[in-house]
């Protein structure tokens, strides 16, 4: 030790020694602390401080390495990091090169969950009014889920049983671990680019809170909220509630139930169709029966049974009227002709009287007037008519 005390170091020399000592001594250490000043840089690297009541230490987590973190770190979260101490001579600083990190306890995740839930609730992401309606008869369902899990098999068999009319489009998705949230977000975006997806099911089978954590990430919540296609969430088991469940347009307790909620039941549809059919048959049968009864009533009526009765009755009426008419006309003609002859007689008489008064006479033979010389019979008796009387000549 005394050797070191007497030795004079350059800054570089002592820093080099410190670097060697620190880096070789603390090659793999785990530290528990609270995150502060967390920054996810555009380059993909993370920079943050880890602190407790008495001290602060700088931390870096490089791009690539931080891909394996299943949750998004945030200020105030208590975590345990594992890594090594590195010294950076140009700045005379030391830091932790973090290789991995995990929440200091399940309580930490629970707390992060509650914080995000409160924040998104206050922003209105859970509002009932902004929830989109789930179509009754989907033609195509997009499924954001692991391609090889039990969940996808369960959902396919539910669709098969309930509504084989539908088409399923599986978007194979990482639903657990680092990068899962980003993958979910990406697939929500992709399915929204397709114009024929009627509803999306976002699903994952059961697991621990860490396994389901992707569904509690803020980016997933915002992607669900932004989706133009309605989303049904079916994550974990009955008891698991994730942030995704709160934002989704409809929450199902499990993947299978999500598919049930997304599809109508074919048996119910068949029954509906059969019921409609038999109801229609009943109604049309009844209608026809009613018309038939009415028709029979008409046919069996008096008028139809004795069709000539009516004709005869009318015919008789016509005859009677015709007879009356003829009689009346005859009567009128007779009276008119009587009147005419009376008038003509008096007219005639009036004319002859005038002529006789002037001194003319009329000669009658055999009561006929003789008006031409040739008609006169010299041997026959004649009557000469004067104005004032007649003379018989024998």
């Amino acid at each position: 030790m005394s050797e070191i005390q007497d030795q004079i170091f350059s800054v570089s020399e002592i820093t080099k020694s410190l670097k060697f000592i620190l880096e070789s001594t603390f090659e793999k250490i785990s530290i528990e602390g609270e995150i502060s000043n967390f920054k996810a840089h555009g380059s993909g690297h993370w920079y943050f401080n880890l602190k407790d009541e008495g001290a602060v230490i700088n931390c870096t987590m490089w791009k690539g390495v931080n891909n394996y973190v299943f949750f998004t770190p945030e200020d105030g979260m208590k975590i345990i990091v594992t890594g090594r101490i590195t010294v950076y001579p140009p700045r005379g600083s030391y830091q932790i090169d973090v290789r991995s990190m995990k929440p200091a306890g399940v309580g930490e995740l629970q707390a992060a969950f509650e914080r995000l839930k409160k924040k998104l609730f206050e922003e209105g992401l859970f509002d009932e009014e902004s929830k989109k309606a789930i179509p009754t008869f989907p033609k195509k369902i997009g499924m954001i889920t692991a391609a090889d899990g039990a969940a996808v098999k369960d959902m396919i068999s539910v669709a098969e049983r309930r509504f084989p009319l539908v088409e399923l489009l599986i978007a194979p998705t990482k639903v657990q671990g680092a990068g899962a949230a980003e993958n979910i977000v990406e697939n929500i975006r992709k399915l929204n680019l397709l114009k024929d997806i009627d509803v999306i099911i976002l699903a994952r089978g059961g697991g621990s809170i860490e396994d389901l954590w992707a569904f509690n990430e803020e980016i997933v919540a915002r992607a669900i909220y932004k989706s133009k296609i309605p989303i049904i969430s079916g994550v974990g088991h009955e008891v698991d509630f994730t942030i995704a469940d709160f934002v989704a347009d409809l929450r199902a307790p499990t993947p299978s139930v999500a598919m049930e909620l997304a599809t109508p039941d074919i048996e119910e549809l068949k029954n509906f169709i059969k019921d409609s059919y038999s109801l229609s048959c009943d109604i049309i049968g009844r209608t026809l029966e009613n018309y038939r009864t009415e028709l029979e009533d008409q046919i069996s009526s008096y008028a139809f049974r004795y069709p000539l009765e009516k004709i005869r009755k009318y015919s008789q009426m016509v005859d009677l009227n015709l007879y009356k008419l003829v009689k009346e006309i005859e009567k009128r003609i007779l009276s008119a002709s009587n009147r005419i002859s009376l008038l003509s007689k008096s007219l005639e008489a009036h004319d002859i009287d005038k002529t006789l008064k002037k001194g003319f006479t009329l000669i009658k033979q055999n009561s006929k007037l003789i008006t031409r010389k040739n008609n006169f019979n010299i041997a026959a008796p004649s009557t000469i008519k004067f104005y004032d009387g007649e003379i018989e000549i024998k």
Partner: protein
Amino acid sequence: MSKKKSSDNFEDKLARLEEITTSLENSEIGLEESIQLFEEGVKLSKECLSVLEKAELKVTTLKKDLSEINNLEDD
């Protein structure tokens, strides 16, 4: 306008079937129209049932890039 037009869409057919049944129940309509509606209803019931009987679930997988999918929206 769409009253008479029977669509290929299952949902539309089902809706039309419901409409027909409701119309038939309405006693205001005449015999000829009743029979017409009935015939249309029977035809639709058969079509719908046949669609359901013949249905086979189709499952496809979304590719990594969307290049194979040709029905992208314009924007």
